[in-house]
Each structure stands twice: as structure tokens, then as C-alpha cells.
């Protein structure tokens, strides 16, 4: 059974089914839409369970020749790097679907686009061909553009256009990089596994003496890919689309944006740029280090200055995503695992944070942190849930964020001691913005304006509780995730080699 294709295109099938449902039957539309995300989630679980971590190479592959003239193949397959991302996508999309119950206008269009988006995300993580990758990557922009631009907040048009153009610009650079890889590989290919083995054997760009201000062609290709991915991560200074997009996007879309879309940049590093161009990646390790550290420190500082709840979480994302770069900059297995762990953990934690901001926004219709106060006395269950997730973001041991940060530090410290110290110092600032947020929203005397605020309801709890369970499980028992990613990381580290051999 073509499991990966089924998983990828089931949401698209759902979107087509929804097109046939009359517009007025909103309840039916919601249930059908949610049903398809549930099916996709179940399929992603099956993929995870069927994946055998100890077996090397890509699994569950599907391979059909598509456009033989330019060597494009329909090639899907998964390994330890894509499986957790696929699971994350399935889970988060389903939970965001539950959180979409509050979408009241143009329900049909919303769900059609929502399902279309899921196909793009699943495809990006499941494909093994650069042409397919580019298609899935770009195709996601379309539903995302409309989802922000139609169902967003007051400045939705600005945010949607900014998001679209910024990512598109990155995508174009990425495409140039892909084309360069295609034309320099011998024989010409767009197959990721093939390019990886060519790159790791040093056969890519062999004999190419092109120089541009001292940069070789692989360096330039790497930079093109890097910028394309970095915009998506987002890496400082390409991050400013993120706060706008998050603030304007409706809650479920913020959740997907933070939890899944931001991971595609990091996934690009792990899947494409580093394994295919290991030497260029090492040449630019300083770039990863510097931009990673700046992102970590800068994001945390700016998060502390925020008065908008969503913006605070958005900037905290910039800070957290810096760990991916820091981890990858050291070319140690601990750092690579730490960065990857951070991707997954951030998806869970920040996804939950955006869900919880949404819960508050639905009740208060404001995100101004200073407008709240003392809610702990009024909404104890919400307080409890928000506190857990906030503490998880803060990196409290016992939750996944701590493990990710700890591994990253462990990997980076032996290589860059002073710079790692700078990043470690940031844990104080992180604690600062998280606790400051909790103090302003939850503690102190109750702001009488919210004296009638209802506590979090069962549907909203349903969206958050699975994430709480996962973040604690991954914090106490990291092997759950490590068992999947350890073997493939080991193989990759052997192939890439250390920074200074």
C-alpha cells in the first residue's frame, strides 16, 4: 500500500469532498474536515509505528518516473529525520482542526484551504526529490496566504503579503540552489538520496573552478539554500515576518505556523543543505553559530519588551529556533540531536502556547498582557495548563524543552565555549519573560473586568492536554524520540565528519 502517498493526499481528497458540500451546512463541513485530519493523523501514527529505526536508509519508499526528460521522479520515503516531523504535522493539524471550531465566517473555504495546507506540509516532509520538495514547499504558501489574509486580524493583508513575498523570495533562492545542484551533478539528478551520496563522496562540483570573491560554487549554492531555509526558520535577521504573521493569523493557523511551518527550515538543513554540501556547511559553521546566538539572545530580550501576548510568543520562537542553528554549528552528534530535539519540542510547546493565547483571546478579545491580572483566581484550570506550558518553554527540567537545550549546550560547549556561555546566560532572560507574562496575566489582584470569565472548556482542553502529555513524556523519557533519531544522526555524523578533523 502506498502509505506515504495516501497520508499526503488524504487531506487533499478531503478538500475535494468538501467542495461538494453545500456552503450552508457548516457543521457537516467542520466534521468532515476534522475527520480527514484525523485520518491523516492516524496514517502518520502508522508511518511512525512501521518505521524501523535500526534499519538504515529510507523506508516505505515510493518511486515512479514522472518527467524523465529532466530526471524528475515521484519519489517518497522516510527516515528518522522525517518521521517525527510527519507525526508532529499529523498531530498538530488535527488539534488545530479542533481549535478551528471557532471559525465562523466562510467555513467551507477555510476548511478546504486548511486541508490543502496539510497536503503541502505532509508532502514536504515525505518527498525525496528536490522538484517535489519545491512544489510542496511553494504550494503551502497559497493556502497560508489566504488563511491569514481572510481570517486574520486587523492588519491581515499586510501580514499575509509580507509572509507570502518573504517566503517566496527565499523559495526562489532555494530553487536556484536546486538548479545548480541539478546541473552540476553527473548524471543530472534531483534525487535527494543520490545527491547526498554524491555530496558526501565529494563528487558534486568535482573539477569546478568557479570563484566569486573567493567563494566556490558549492559555497554559493549552500548560501542560496541557507537563505531559503533561514527565512522559514526564521533565522535572525530574516525573522520580522514572523511576529506580524503570528499576530494577524487566526489561532489555529498560528499554531500550524509555529509548530510545523517553522520546522521546514530546520528540516531543510538536516535533509538537504548539510548532507548534500557537508564541506560548505562546515565552511559556514560560523554563520550558524553567530546567527544562532544572536537569535537566542536577541529573541529573548525582545520577547521581554512585548505587551502583546502573541508577539511575545512569536519572539520567544525566534529565540528557541536559534538553538537549532547553535546545535548544528558544532558538528557534534549531541548538537545535531539537540537542535533536532528543539524542533520537535518547540512544535509541541509553542503550538500549545498559541492555543492557550487563543483561548484567552476568545474570551477577552484582547492580547494586551497588561489588560489582564489575577486570572489565576478566576480560571484555575486554564492557569494550571498555561503555567505548565510556560514553564516548559522556560526550559524547566522534566519537560522536553530542557532536554533540547541541554543537548544543544552539551554539543556546542566543547567547540565554542565562550559563545555557548552567552547562550546559557539567556536562560535567565527566558525565565524573565515567561514569569513576567505569568505575573501580568495570572497573578496579582483580579482585574474586575474579567470577573465573569469562564474557565477553559472541554474542547479547548482536548487540544492542549495531548501536548502536555507529550512534552512531559519527552522530558522524562527522551528515549522515546531519541530511539527514532539516534541511528540516522549517527549515520549522518559519520558521513559528514567532525568540524575539525
Amino acid at each position: 500500500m502506498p502509505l506515504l502517498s495516501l497520508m499526503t493526499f488524504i487531506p487533499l481528497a478531503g478538500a475535494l469532498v468538501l467542495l461538494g458540500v453545500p456552503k450552508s451546512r457548516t457543521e457537516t463541513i467542520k466534521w468532515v474536515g476534522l475527520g480527514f485530519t484525523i485520518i491523516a493523523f492516524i496514517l502518520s501514527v502508522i508511518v511512525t509505528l512501521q518505521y524501523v529505526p535500526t534499519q538504515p536508509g529510507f523506508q516505505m519508499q515510493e518511486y515512479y518516473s514522472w518527467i524523465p526528460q529532466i530526471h524528475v521522479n515521484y519519489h517518497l520515503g522516510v527516515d528518522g529525520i522525517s518521521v517525527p516531523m510527519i507525526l508532529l504535522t499529523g498531530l498538530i493539524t488535527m488539534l488545530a482542526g479542533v481549535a478551528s471550531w471557532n471559525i465562523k465566517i466562510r467555513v467551507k473555504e477555510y476548511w478546504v484551504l486548511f486541508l490543502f495546507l496539510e497536503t503541502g506540509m505532509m508532502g514536504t516532509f515525505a518527498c525525496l526529490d528536490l522538484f517535489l520538495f519545491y512544489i510542496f514547499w511553494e504550494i503551502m504558501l497559497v493556502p497560508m496566504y489566504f488563511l491569514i489574509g481572510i481570517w486574520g486580524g486587523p492588519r491581515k493583508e499586510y501580514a499575509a503579503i509580507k509572509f507570502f513575498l518573504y517566503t517566496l523570495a527565499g523559495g526562489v533562492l532555494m530553487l536556484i540552489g536546486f538548479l545548480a545542484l541539478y546541473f552540476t551533478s553527473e548524471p543530472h539528478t534531483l534525487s535527494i538520496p543520490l545527491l547526498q551520496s554524491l555530496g558526501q563522496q565529494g563528487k558534486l562540483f568535482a573539477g569546478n573552478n568557479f570563484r566569486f570573491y573567493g567563494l566556490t560554487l558549492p559555497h554559493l549554492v549552500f548560501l542560496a539554500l541557507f537563505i531559503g531555509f533561514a527565512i522559514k526558520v526564521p533565522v535572525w535577521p530574516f525573522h520580522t515576518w514572523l511576529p506580524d504573521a503570528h499576530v494577524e493569523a487566526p489561532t489555529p493557523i498560528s499554531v500550524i505556523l509555529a509548530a510545523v511551518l517553522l520546522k521546514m527550515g530546520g528540516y531543510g538543513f538536516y535533509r538537504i543543505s548539510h548532507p548534500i554540501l557537508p564541506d560548505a556547511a562546515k565552511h559556514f559553521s560560523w554563520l550558524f553559530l553567530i546567527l544562532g546566538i544572536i537569535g537566542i539572545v536577541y529573541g529573548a530580550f525582545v520577547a521581554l519588551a512585548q505587551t502583546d501576548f502573541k508577539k511575545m510568543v512569536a519572539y520567544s520562537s525566534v529565540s528557541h529556533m536559534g538553538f537549532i542553528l547553535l546545535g548544528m554549528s558544532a558538528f557534534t552528534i549531541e548538537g545535531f540531536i539537540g537542535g533536532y530535539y528543539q524542533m520537535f519540542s518547540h512544535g509541541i510547546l509553542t503550538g500549545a502556547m498559541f492555543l492557550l493565547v487563543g483561548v484567552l483571546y476568545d474570551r477577552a478579545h484582547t492580547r494586551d498582557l497588561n489588560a489582564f491580572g489575577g486570572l489565576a483566581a478566576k480560571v484555575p484550570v486554564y492557569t494550571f495548563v498555561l503555567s505548565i506550558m510556560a514553564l516548559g518553554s522556560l526550559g524547566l527540567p522534566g519537560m522536553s524543552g530542557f532536554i533540547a537545550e541541554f543537548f544543544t549546550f552539551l554539543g556546542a560547549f566543547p567547540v565554542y565555549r565562550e559563545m555557548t556561555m552567552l547562550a546559557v546566560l539567556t536562560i535567565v532572560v527566558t525565565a524573565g519573560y515567561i514569569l513576567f507574562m505569568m505575573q501580568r496575566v495570572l497573578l496579582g489582584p483580579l482585574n474586575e473586568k474579567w470577573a465573569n470569565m469562564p474557565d477553559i472548556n472541554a474542547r479547548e482542553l482536548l487540544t492542549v492536554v495531548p501536548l502536555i502529555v507529550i512534552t512531559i513524556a519527552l522530558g522524562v523519557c527522551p528515549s522515546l524520540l531519541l530511539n527514532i533519531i539516534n541511528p540516522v544522526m549517527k549515520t549522518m555524523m559519520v558521513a559528514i565528519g567532525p568540524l575539525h578533523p
Partner: protein
Amino acid sequence: MLNYTNLIPLIPLIPLASFVILILFGSRMKEKAAYVSIGAALAAFALSVPGIMMTLKHQSVHMEWIWLYLGDRPIKMGFMIDSLTAMMLFVVTFIGSLIHIYSVGYMHGDKRFSRYFAYLSLFFFSMLLIVLGDNLIMVFIGWEMVGLCSYLLISFWFERMSAARAGMKAFLANRVGDVGFLLAILSFFWMFGTVNFEQMAEKIHQYQGTMLVIPAVLLFCGAVGKSAQFPLHVWLPDAMEGPTPVSALIHAATMVAAGVYMVARSFFVFHGNIEAMQVVSYIGCFTAFMAATIALTQTDIKKVLAYSTLSQLGYMVMALGVGGYIAGPFHLMTHAFFKALLFLGAGSVIHGTGTQDIRQMGGLMKKMPITAWTFLAAFVAIAGLPPFAGFWSKDEILLSTFNSPVPGHLFLFAVGLFTEALTAFYMARVFFLTFLGDARDKEIHAHESPLVMTVPLAILAFFALFIGLPGSPMAGHWFQHWLQQSFPYMHAHEIHLNFGVMGASIFLALSGIGLAYLMYIKGTISPDKVAQSIRPLYIYSLNKWYWDEIYGMFLIKPFLWSTNALYAFDVWIVDGVVNGAAMVARGLGFLQFIFDKYIVDGIVNLFGWVTQKSSRIVRLVQTGIIQNYILLLVVGLALIVWFKILENMHAVL
């Protein structure tokens, strides 16, 4: 037969289970929730007893398991019980259980009663991780978790803004220290490839000399945060916003002592590392002295005790710094008993009178006899009067300082002695003003606390008086020999009595108490006049050396300013570039539009225009009237003929 080793994980896990039960179902249990938590605490105590007994027989227990693989590298976790852990287990589970019981009375009627006990259980779990952990990661995990519990319990009455702020302050100050701790862990991982205590101690000789100075000081930073040493001491006095039993358990007896425990546990890093030891001892000594001077003038009974705790913790840290690896933990244990007792006594007083201000109290001996007598027991213990607990441990510290290899040890010794006099004075002051004399505020109708509170007081009083005896010469320094097991890398040396040190310490303690007696009982010396005569010092002490103000001015404000500045930078510069690029693109688009409209299209239109205009002129000719055409024809012919004639004329001429 059940193997005891396999039961060790239950010691922390039972309180964890209690936490989970209470957080999920606690609100439905009402005040019965306390039984779950107390049961868990007592179970942890009961399960610890066999382990403690084994260490008495000079055995230790160790278990470990592989937590995870990072690549190929296994990372192990484990629990162990040796004599140092056994001492901590005894302190934590025994005092902790008593405080659980006491809390039933103290928290009676609180609307978040079950939540309080849930947090206590979570604290128990986390603290036991610190105590039982056989490696620094486990200790760090517990370390951060107790910090969380401390935060939750300090801001337990979060409706009060001051409580909410105090909790945050505590967490952040601790985090600053934790940066050091985390960096120390990273350094040790890098150097030794492991952070297991036993394995690190075995490999430590590879790194003698200056290489260990920085990691050791970083590790000590963690202790500075948790044990509230200068310069991170500012959170502990504010932490008194929490319920008083919490102050007793977390902010006096156990958690704040974790820093001392951690340094003792990893003493192999400090041993022989003179630079690091100097840092430790001077910070401890300074904290001990500074806090004692502040305690002299405070009028809030809990604040006095808080500064006293700071001071005593400074004492313990100084002990470790001068090489007193036994003296520090010894004082940790005796202090845990008498300071817990002092706080619980203060709690009983607050419960009975409704005030925390000692100026409003007085004469409570008659109305609250059990509280008063137990408080007296704690007072004599902390003041350092023989043969009570504090005397033996303080003497041990002073002796270690006196014989220390650390440069400047005699200075430290002198400050330590002087601090002892200060301690005796301020404790006597609190005792006299609270319990003796006449009631100063007639509005207050004090009553003795219920048995659930006074029985724990009585039990603690017994220990506060006599827990020092196993470490006394009469017992042949049994305690010291027992604890020595946990320091196999140290050469045990015989303890020589020094009656000079002992005598000086007794003399200074007595003179401190005597001075307080003259000032607050006899009235021969007027406290107001003393305050007047040294007014600048008095004000300085009353305002706690202005640390909060200094930090606010020089750290917090610039920091907050920098976050706002960076945000402005983000909006105007980083995003400005993006929006600028968009504007440039739009501008170029506009220019292109202009070019397109006026140049490209203009040329096209020009052709049209020219054609149109020229055709209009040409059209003038085409009138359609035959006469005009003939006229033109004739004129044309005439012109041609005319030109031909002119041509020919030239030729002829």
C-alpha cells in the same frame, strides 16, 4: 525478600504520586487532602530509615540505570545513599513530615488548602531527587524543580502583588545561579566525560591546578543562588511572603541548604583548589556578617529569622570554603532543626496574635507557653550555648576556620566570632521582645496554637537541643567519623579540641545575650539612644544595605531599557530594512509604470500622434472638389515648366 536497593526510587516517587493525586482530585477532598500528602511524606521517611541504618553500619547503597543514549554515549541516572545523603534524608523527611503535620493547623480554612499540600509533595519529590541523585544532572533537575516549588509557594497567596513579585524574584535570582551550575555541568562533561560524583572524584587527579578553578567557581554559583549567598541573597528575605511553614521547610531547613549540600557533595572539586576555596569562604563570611547586621534592626519576626538564615547559611558556606567539609554539613543539620523550630514558633505566634511585628508583641510567655518554651530551646541552640546543638556545629566551623590553609583565615575567623555575638544578640532581642515583658498591644488577644502545631514544635525542640551531641567530644566525635565515609578521597584527621576557640565563642555568645538583656529587659541601655548615637549605621542596617535599590538602579533598569531598545531596533531597523526593500521595490515598480506609460507607451503613441497630425495636414488637400485638383495640376505643371526653363537658361548662359 525484597531488595532494598530497588525500593529507593519509591522514596521520591511516592510524594510525586501524592502531588499528581492532589493536583487532579485535591479540590474535591477538601482538607482531607492533607492526609495524602502527610502519608506520602511519612512513607518517604519510613523508606529512608533502612538506608540510613545501613550507613550506620558503614555500608552505602547505589543503583543506576541507563537514561538515554546520545548517539552511542549512554547517559546514566542513579540514586545512592551514603552517610551524607543519609543525613540529608533524615533532615528532609523527618523535619518535612513534622512541617506537613504542622501545616494542617496553620493552613486550616485556606481556600487553596489542597493546592498547598500538592505543592509540598512536589517539593518533597524534587528535594529528594537532589539528595539521592548520584550525578549532577539529577541534582540539577531536582534543583530547578525545588526552585519551581519555591516560586509556587512564595506566591501562594498570589492575590497580593508583593507575594507574586517575591516569587518571581526568587526564581530569577536562582536562575542566575543556575547559569553557573549548568556551565559547570557542561565543563565537567567536557573534562571528565561524566558527571557522576563517584567517577568524577576518581578522575579528578588528572586536572590538578588552575584548570579546576573556573568550573569550581561556576558550580559554586549554583550554590550562591540556591543558598542565597551574596550577591544573590536578595530573594530570600522577600520569600517570607509565603506561608510560614513553607518558610520553615523550604526557606530555612532544606532547600536553601541544598547549595551547601551540593558543594559538600562535590567537595573533591574544591579540595586543594585554593583560589576557588577562597572565593567560597569569603562570600560565605561576607554573607554571614552582612545578614547578621541587618537582622539586628528588623522588626518583622519573619524578616529577622530570614536574615538569620542568610547569616547561618553564610556560616556553612564559609565552613566549606575553609576546608571544613564536615563542619558545613554538621551545621546544616543542626541549623535545620533549630531554624525550622524558630520559623514554626514564629508561625505559631503569628497564628495566635495576627501580627508579625515584634514591637506589638511582648509577654506571650504566659499566653503561649508551649510556643515560648520551644522557641527558647531554639534560641539557646542558635545562640551557641553549650551543650545545645548550635554550639557544637559552630565550634566545629570556627575551629576549621582557625586551622584552615586558606589565606586570610584568621580574618575570617575573627569575623565569624563577631558574627556569633551578633547572632546571639538579635536572637535574644527577638525572644525578649516577643515572649517576655508585658504585652505592648492590648488589642491583640493571643492564644496558644492547637496540638497539631505544638506537638511538632515539641519534637523539634528536643532535637534542637540535643542533635549536636553526637558530634561532641563526649560522643567521641561519632558524627564526624560517620560523615567521613562520604569523603573517601579526604584523609580523616584527628580532631583536636581547642578550648581557646570554644571559650571565645561562649564568651561572645553570652555577651551578645547579656547586651540584649540590658537593652530589652532591664532597660539600663535605651535601644533608641543606641540607634541615635550610631544613626547612619542604624539606617543602613534598617534598609538592608540598600541592595534592592542598588540592583534596581544598576541592573534591572538598564536591562529593561535594553530590551525596549532592542525591540525598537527590531521594528525600525531590521523590519525597517524589510519594509524599505518593499518600498524600494514598489518605488521601482512605480518608476517602471511611469516609464511604461510615458516612454514605452509614449513612443507607440507618438507614432500614432505623428500619423494622425500629419494625416490631418495631408487631408486638407483632399477636398474632393474637381476644380481644386485641376488647379493643383495646372500649378504643378506651371512650376515644372518654370524650373525647366530656368535650367535651360543656365545652360545657355
